[in-house]
């Protein structure tokens, strides 16, 4: 009986098998796929063309490879299923925050050999390399890094009279000044002065930065065991500051159960004047919401009682764990041709020129840049030279952001980072919806929860 049933099941599965399998193999070339390929979309035409150009150049130079386009771009909810199903593109990109989760789960290939061979290890910022290293092996290429800064909506600032005689904002230097400025804007324009996300971990993400400035610590390693310590008076002061934004200054957006993507939406449509974000997202204001690119200014994070902290994050390339060494080689050759390689060559320069040219033609903001991952000055100069002719915004609006003096650049908390953010999200949600909540009690509870739910299980 069992045999028969199995036979039948087999037969039917075969039927579906025919439907499922369509990958043609057996060619002589080595095939690899490149993720985050620009999608066919009106706003992406330039990027698409640029990638097509890279592809032509690559095919000419390396006929032994076949590049497959993969339109998938990293996002948390689709990553795991893709990875588990072996469907990740050979080359994919993700964020610094995801690195440890991905390497721990074994979905990234050890590419130490290639990084050595192609000169990445010698030319990259060692601080960034540290992020992708685990047990002496390297699992990714951090290709750019950013720090948090404040975004300012120039339209709203103008309306609120917050610009100086030359038309540049009077930037807030401290958290106190920031709150007051937001309040003035709210009173004059009726629009939210400041944005605070509280979902998808992004509330916690931004809150850690604020709390560092107030002198708070989050996780401490005591004799090899991690302790949650964010119920200190400093952390409470930071939470009180955030809570005051809602209940004392009344400057926040109406709906607080939202994430950072809501900030981009509200900011771009002149509904919010100031918020914390990075240069990485500048593009979306223009591409998604048709915001005027000249309407944005950025400044460094304000100073708190403990200093001027700014959180750093960034993007990293990873190679799918199931890739062969030959495929990985192809990937590194591709990175070279597409302008992400460490070498200073004409080809590299051309690829970079094309990138900035395309972004410029598209009307995106070209100018303010992320922290470069290169240490080699020639490589850095190459990038700057390629960019210079295409800068299309008033760089004075970004001067304060690009000036790192006085900044303490800090990476994210070391363990259970996403869980920490989630826990802090909950704290913020209460603090921003319940005027009677007690910051100390909230953080005490959060510390206890975080300790038992995550740190004790490390």
């Amino acid at each position, binding site marked *: 009986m069992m045999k028969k049933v199995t036979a039948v099941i087999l037969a039917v599965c075969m039927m579906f098998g025919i439907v499922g399998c369509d990958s043609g193999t057996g060619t002589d070339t080595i095939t690899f796929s490149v993720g985050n390929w620009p999608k066919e979309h009106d706003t992406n035409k330039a990027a698409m063309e640029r990638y097509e150009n890279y592809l032509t150049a690559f095919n000419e130079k390396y006929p032994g490879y076949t590049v497959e386009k993969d339109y998938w771009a990293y996002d948390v909810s689709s990553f795991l299923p893709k990875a588990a199903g072996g469907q990740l593109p050979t080359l994919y990109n993700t964020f610094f925050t995801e690195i440890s989760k991905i390497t721990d789960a074994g*979905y990234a290939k050890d590419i130490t050999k290639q990084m050595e061979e192609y000169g990445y290890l010698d030319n990259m910022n060692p601080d960034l390399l540290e992020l992708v290293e685990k047990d002496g092996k390297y699992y990714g290429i951090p290709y750019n890094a950013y720090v948090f800064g404040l975004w300012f909506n120039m339209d709203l600032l103008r309306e609120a009279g917050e610009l100086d005689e030359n038309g540049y904002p009077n930037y807030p230097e401290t958290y106190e000044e920031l709150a007051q400025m937001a309040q003035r804007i709210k009173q004059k324009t009726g629009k939210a002065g400041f944005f605070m996300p509280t979902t998808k971990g992004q509330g916690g993400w931004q809150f850690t930065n604020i709390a560092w400035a107030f002198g708070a610590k989050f996780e401490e390693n005591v004799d090899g065991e991690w302790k949650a310590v964010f119920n200190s008076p400093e952390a409470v002061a930071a939470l009180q500051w955030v809570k005051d934004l809602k209940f004392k200054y009344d400057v926040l957006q*109406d709906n607080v159960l939202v994430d950072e993507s809501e900030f981009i939406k509200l900011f771009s449509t002149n509904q919010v004047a100031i918020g914390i974000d990075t240069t990485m997202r500048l593009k979306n204001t223009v591409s998604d919401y048709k915001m005027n690119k000249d309407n944005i200014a950025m400044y460094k994070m304000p100073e708190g009682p403990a200093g001027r902290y700014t959180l750093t994050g960034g993007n990293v390339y990873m190679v799918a764990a199931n890739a062969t060494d030959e495929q990985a080689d192809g990937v590194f050759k591709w990175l070279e041709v597409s302008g992400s390689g460490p070498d200073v060559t004409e080809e590299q320069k051309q690829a970079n020129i094309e990138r900035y040219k395309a972004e410029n033609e598209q009307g995106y903001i070209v100018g303010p840049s992320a922290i470069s991952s290169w240490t080699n000055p020639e490589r850095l100069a190459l990038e700057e030279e390629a960019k210079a002719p295409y800068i299309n915004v008033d760089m004075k609006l970004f001067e304060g952001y690009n000036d790192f003096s006085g900044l303490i650049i800090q990476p994210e908390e070391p363990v259970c980072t996403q869980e920490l953010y989630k826990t802090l999200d909950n704290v913020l949600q209460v603090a921003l919806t319940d005027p009677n909540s007690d910051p100390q009690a909230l953080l005490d509870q959060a510390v206890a*929860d975080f300790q038992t739910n995550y740190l004790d299980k490390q």
Partner: protein
Amino acid sequence: MERPRRAAGVREQRRSHVGRLVRSNFSAWVLLLPSILLFIIVMWRPILVGIVGSFCQMDGYTAVGFAGLDNYKAVLSDTTFLTALKNTFSYVFWSLVIGYLPPVIFAVMLNELVHWKSFFKFSIYFPTMVPAVAASLIWYFLFQPGEGGILNMFLGLFGLPSSQWLQNPNLTIPLIVFTMAWRGFGSSTIMYLASLQGVNGELYEAATVDGAGMFSKIRHVTLPQISGVMLLLFVKQIIGVFQVMVEPMTMTDGGPNNASISLNLQSYNYAFNYFQVDKSLALSVVTFLILIVLTVVYFKLNKRVSEN
């Protein structure tokens, strides 16, 4: 010689009968086979895999070792579990108040009316056709807090203060349930109505002659007629709402501070957001068990009630 021959004939006859039976059974089974396979693949096997998997340690979606009760310990000791459990019962409670009782009342009322009756029927059923995600999103927009919210504008017209709507932890579950009920009650009302229309008018007349008032008529004539449907919908409502997930996912993502997280949403988060598939399985098995217990208790009680 006669005998064996006849015996052989009988045997032959029987064999051909058996043959026909087997043949017709066989072709019937062939027609049924796709269904059986699909039910195994889609319904039965996953339940078994889920139960087995909850005792395993998972790496991604692959079992890599036996974990015993570790997943259960981890899930049950997580402080979110109690919140989610409490919330889930809260969802059920509110759904009985907001979603279960009103359709009975509405159906009784609608059954009395002669004016605009088909328009009422049409309009009440209409929200049922709005897809769940679309309905959640529409209400998400309507429940916009602050001065920009349309519902707050209406409150303002009546001189009432603005509400925080979904951001108020005490309101968030009732409002999500309301959204679900908005979609759901039309169909229940129509079902009650159909069964009310089957009531023999003479019963009411007889009751009138006996001097029964309106409430007495409802109790003795109306309710007995629809009690069957009511029981059915009661179980269905509890089982359905106990598994609530998409609506809080769309409207609040479980917030504020987990005030609207349900067992299933937590299970979803484990599986698809936190990369902890084993915990997700353990939690959904716990949910499963609670539901089975509830269902069994319900049927036991129901039996006792009907026996008395």
